[in-house]
């Protein structure tokens, strides 16, 4: 079983992983400065060449579909769509928010935070592998959503410390016993793949970046 996982949602780093028979065979990381476009497909090629395999022999394609860098997502998703469509396969999609909380831990719930502007961010709340919600919100508003759940222990997974984070944790502790933060969390590729399998496969025509933010125009 040969699987490819593409994650181009981050602003600073992109990743292509090749999994063969439940083993992570190779991960190609690209540090994005301005040339993600030059490097993402070559990363895919590298993965396959390490296995001496051909793209046509790929069994499954997984792609992180957002939220995150608009440009990055477009590149990764276009590549995934075209490969899947050509091979007549469907695509498994996983949210970038989930990847932050992908590492196994003993907490009831995991909260992923991807910062955006000022006091707004993308939030993803997970109970094991079940997604409770994924939204774009202000720190204040999301408190309400979180408090709807009965949470005993919560782990916050995020890339960076942030001025709002500590205050946010104080607020959370009002209703939750244990709240910890996990800066720069490790990514568990196999959990990501499993989540993708749980999410189900999608026709490549229907795979598009998930922005979470509204883009609608009101005239």
């Amino acid at each position, binding site marked *: 079983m040969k699987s490819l996982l593409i994650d181009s949602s981050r602003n600073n780093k992109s990743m292509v992983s090749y999994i063969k028979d439940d083993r992570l065979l190779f991960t190609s990381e690209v540090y994005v400065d301005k040339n993600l476009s030059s490097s993402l497909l070559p990363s895919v090629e590298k993965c396959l060449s390490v296995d001496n395999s051909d793209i046509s022999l790929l069994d499954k394609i997984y792609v992180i579909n957002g939220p995150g860098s*608009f440009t990055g997502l477009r590149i990764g998703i276009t590549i995934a769509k075209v490969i899947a469509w050509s091979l007549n396969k469907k695509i498994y999609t996983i949210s970038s928010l989930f990847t932050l909380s992908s590492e196994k831990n003993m907490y009831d719930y995991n909260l992923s935070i991807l910062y955006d502007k000022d006091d707004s961010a993308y939030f993803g709340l997970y109970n094991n592998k079940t997604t409770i919600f994924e939204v774009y919100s202000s720190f204040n508003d999301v408190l309400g959503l979180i408090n709807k759940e009965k949470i005993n222990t919560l782990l916050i997974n995020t890339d960076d410390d942030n001025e709002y984070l500590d205050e946010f944790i104080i607020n959370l502790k009002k209703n939750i016993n244990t709240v910890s933060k996990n800066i720069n969390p490790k990514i568990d590729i196999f959990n990501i793949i499993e989540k993708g399998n749980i999410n189900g496969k999608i026709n490549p025509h229907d795979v598009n970046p998930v*922005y979470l933010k509204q*883009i*609608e125009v009101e005239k």
Partner: protein
Amino acid sequence: MEYKLLTSSEEETMVIAENIESEKFENMVICLIGDLGSGKTVFTKGFAAALAIEDTITSPTFNVIKEYTSGQLPLYHMDFYRLEGDIKELGIEEYFKKKGIVIIEWADLIEKHLPRQRLEIRFMIVDEERRLLIIKPYGKKYEELCEAVL
């Protein structure tokens, strides 16, 4: 703090642009506001010439975004003249972080998308030849630039 400058020819507008260019820095954003024919693209030409960009700077109205990479710093020349309505995502945010210079014509049409720190220049048509430029810096870096140049 606003700075008012009166120019009597396209050349004079370009000289002001060159002066501003001499204090340029990465991720600098200049917003140009003014009616059709008020001198926004002329200003940009002057700025680009000082950046040593070899290409002819032409109006980006149709293309929306034009990129010039042959100068000392990349120049991203944008124009939102054609856009109406309240758009939540334009697709220009990444340009503010690309370590180049962003010049936006008709920036008043996309106020919500402008970075807090920027240089704003309003062009008013006095008569056929003369223009009044009202320059307003937003943010320390731009205030310092204006003090040094104007």
